[in-house]
Each structure stands twice: as C-alpha cells, then as structure tokens.
C-alpha cells in the first residue's frame, strides 16, 4: 500500500489519498492518468491490471485500488 501511495502521490502530489473517494468521478484521475498509473503498478509492483478491471469503482480511491491489486495478486 505504501508503494501504491507513493505512485499516486507522484502523479498528483496535491491530492489527499486517505480521504479522497471520487478520484475518477470527480475527474481528478483522467484516462491518461489511469494508464500512467497502470504502467507504474505493472513496473513497480509487478501486477498487471487488465482492461476489464478499468472501471471507476476500482480507481475511485487508493483503498479500492489497493484492494484490486490484492485481488489480482491472489488470482
């Protein structure tokens, strides 16, 4: 989770990822950010997020994204 927060902070340093729960709905993360994020996660955490998992619910908060990564690691 720490590494994930680091990646997110590098992308948008001004966002409070502990409290923000509408990253996609409020357009804080746009489609270009999401792809940058997925590439970083693939590179640094070695977890590949497939296209079908790119839905707002999985990217709206750091917590949701963390849960997605854990689920994909378990599969």
């Amino acid at each position, binding site marked *: 989770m720490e590494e994930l927060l680091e990646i997110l902070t590098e992308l948008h340093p001004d966002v409070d990822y502990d409290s923000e729960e509408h990253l996609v709905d409020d*357009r804080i993360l746009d489609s*270009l950010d999401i*792809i940058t994020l997925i*590439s*970083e996660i693939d*590179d640094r955490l070695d977890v590949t997020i497939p*296209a*079908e998992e*790119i839905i707002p619910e999985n990217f709206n908060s750091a917590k949701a994204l963390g849960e997605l990564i854990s689920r994909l690691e378990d599969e």
Partner: protein
Amino acid sequence: MLFNSIPFICFIIGTVFLYYIIPKKVQWCFLLIVSYAFYTIADPRYLIFIGVTTVTVWFTSLKVEKINTEQKAYIKEHKSELSKEQKQTYKDKMKSRRWRWLLLCLLLNLGILCVTKYTNFAIRTINDIFSGAAKLKPVDLIVPLGISFYTFQSLSYVIDVYRGKQEAQHNIFKFALFVSFFPQLAQGPISRYGDLGPQLLAQHRFDSRKLSYGAMRIVWGYFKKVIIADRVVTGLTTLTGSTEYTGAYVLCAMFFYALQLYCDFTGGIDITIGIAEAMGIKVTENFKLPYFSKNIKEYWNRWHITMGSWFTDYIFYPISVCGPMLKLSKWSRNHLPAGIGKRVTVYLSCFAVWLATGIWHGAAWNFVAWGLTNYAVIMISQELEPVYAKFHSRFHVKGKVGYEVFQIIRTICLMSAIRMFDCYKDVAQTFKMMWSMISSFRISTFYDGSLMNIGLTASDYAVIAVGFAVVLGVSIIKARKGSVRERVYNRSPLVFYNLMAVMIVAIIVLGAYGVGYDSSQFIYTQF
C-alpha cells in the same frame, strides 16, 4: 424519413400515443415493431445489415456466457482438487475459447462496417498512390443508416459480456430492440446495454411530466436544427464551396460551421432524448455544454460523450494495457528520459484512438488529418501543463471570470479551426484556405456588404442572431442553475406550455424551409 419532416413528427406522435394505450407488457414488442418499421421505411435493404449484426452479436454473447458458466461450475466442482497453477491454466484455456468467439464476431461486424463505409476510400487512395495507373472504379455500395452507431452499440454489449460485466440477453427480440431502438438508431447516442436495455424492456406508465419534458426537449431540438443550423448551412455551403472565398470569409465559415454543427448535432440528440423521455425512457446524455469548455481535453469530455467513452473503454484501455504495450512501457522507462519514458504508451494509445476517431468521422484523409490534429493539440497541452501551472501561480488568474471567458473563447476558436478539415474538399485546400486568413485577411469583408452575397439576407442574419442569443442564454442559465425546462415547469406548468407553444410558432414561422432551402438531413446520420 427525415427527422425534420412532417411524416416523422406524425410518426413520433402516433408512436408515443399508441405506446401508452396498449397493454404495458407488450410495450417493448411495440417499440421493436416501430423501430423496424422506421428502418424499413428508410430502406428495406438495411434490414439485412442490422439483422446480421443483431443475430451474430446475440449468438456470440450466448456462446461466451455459456463458456463463462461452464468455467465457474467446473472450478466450483473441482475447487479442492485443483492447484493454483492448474486453475490458472484452465481459466486461460476457457478465456481463449471465449476470445475466439468474440474475435470472430468483431471481425465480422467491423468487416461489414469497413466494407460498406471505407471501400471507396481505399479505392480512391490506391488510385491516388499510383497516380491513376491503378484505375480502380468506385463501387456503388449501400451504407445502412446509422451503421456505425448500432455496430458500436452492439459490440460494446458483447465485449461487456466477454468481460463478465454484463449478463447476456437470452431473448433475441429483446436484444434486437436494444440494437434498433429507432430514436437513436440514426445518430446515437451510443448507449450501453446496462443503461438502456432494462429501460426499454420495463413497463412505463403514462406520466404527464415526463411527456411534457420530452415534448419540450423535442421542440428545443427542432428549434436549434430548423431555425439556426438549416439557415446557417446556406451561407456555409457558399463559403466552403469555392476557393474564391478566402481571408475573412474563411474565419466567417469557421464560426458558421461551429454554430451549424453544434445546433445540428445537439438538436438531433435533443430530439432523440426527447422522444425516449416522452415514453419514460432515459437515454444517456451526449453533450454537457461543450462550448463552455476551458481546454480541448475538457471539450472532448463534454462533446459526443458516448463516442468518447466508447473509444476510451474499448480501444484506448485495451491497447494501453496489452502485453506488448506494457513491455514497451518498461523499456521506455529504462532507456528514455524520465518524463517521456513514462508517457510513451499513453502517446501511442492516444494516437491509435485519434486515428480511429478521425476515420470513424469520415472516409477521407481530411478526417484523418482532423483526428491527428486533435491528438497533437491534446498531447502538446498535456506536455505544457507544468508551464500553465507556473503561469497560473505567478499571475493568479485561475478561477477569475475574465480568464475563464478567455479560456472558453480560446477553446472554441481552436476547435473551430481544427474542424475546418471537415469543410474543404481535401487537406491541401484546407491548409491553403487557413493560410489565406493570414495572407489575405480583409476586415472590411465584415461590414462592406460582402456577407450579404453568400446566400443569406439581412433577415436571415437577424434570425440567426436571435436564435443564437436564445441558445446562449439558455446554456448560461443551464450551466449556472441547472435544467431550464424543469425550473420553468416547477414554477408554472402554464408558462411552460405557453413557452412551448411560442417555440413551435417560432419554428413554423422562422424555420428554414420553402423556396431556396432543402430540408437537410442531420449531419451525423451519415455515420
């Protein structure tokens, strides 16, 4: 049957009336019959195309779902016996079976779309490359009404079933209604099954408020289309039809086209959404006041929204996260400068999306150039974001009304300029005409009476100006206070109905028809 014709208006009134008096459980069957009747009236030959798409997509979705169900049952049954690796191998095998069915369906339907829409484009390009030596003759092909829209809509459904995000619809007639729902068949929006399907199949009770809102939305759509778009198009056709209209005329054509396209396309979508709303069906919005966008990226989030989200979900994301792209991303991070290295995959995926968006809009190089210019501007803006941030923090202009108005005008000018690729016969002529705005600009064109000789009279300009003022006023109120029709209705239904009557009279009196005008089809129906 033109959307802006008396028979179509009678068709809508008859459909909505019958929809509410028939038994509710057969409302969806009635909509299916009406939708197919609408398509048959357009051209009976179209039925073959929409029929093939409906059957193949429906069949594929069932096959894919069956494999999914089989997989789940097998894993559940053998949960304790299978190791993690064995489970993964089995899942991969089933995924590849699903993928084969999906691929077949995609190739067939995109193949039909490409052959009908792009064969002549390919022939023209081959002839151009070989300087006429190839001498291939263009072929006379049928391009079914709204083929891009119903193909994309159907494919989004089967891809969602493949991804496990959508349950398959087992009743082919119910699925056929989703593909052919007549108000949005010709020019979108491109709906998702999860949003539209259940609503089409639900039973709808008569609701006077929804009927009134729907009727007002339809009238508003016709107001924009018939009073503004169909009037402006006369001047626009003159200005872009000849190379003699250079300099200031090009600037004039630029804003004419911006106005015409907006009123035509949003007007058409208003009519579509209004018809559906009158029957209690909510169709996805396709525009969110796009001309109030402060930059081009925001503009594309607010213009033709359903097309943009289709390209993002089904082209941009899959390309960006596919294996080779992720490998390239890793390589570029290690071998290229940090900033660029991180964004290589985004650049490439965006390029593919904008190329596809350009080609989708028209089978000509003009549209490819249009798509790639959009791409270039978006990417440059993206790269310049740190510069903008520095500028904003230094001059404290962010959030200031004056600066926001400047940003909005800048975006309108930029988008209108890029769109000129759409107006002239080829890319070379577009550049030539755009250059003439700098090389031979005569400001006097705007006041020496020259604009009275392009097919528009002083009264035409007056009507356009009044229509534009109304559209702008309504848009500003909507941006600041929300839906105008709801506010008026809530205050007084009587005022609401009087307003609607005034608008209908305005459409009849001020609409562009009669001698000198052709009742023109909506621009986006050609897609």
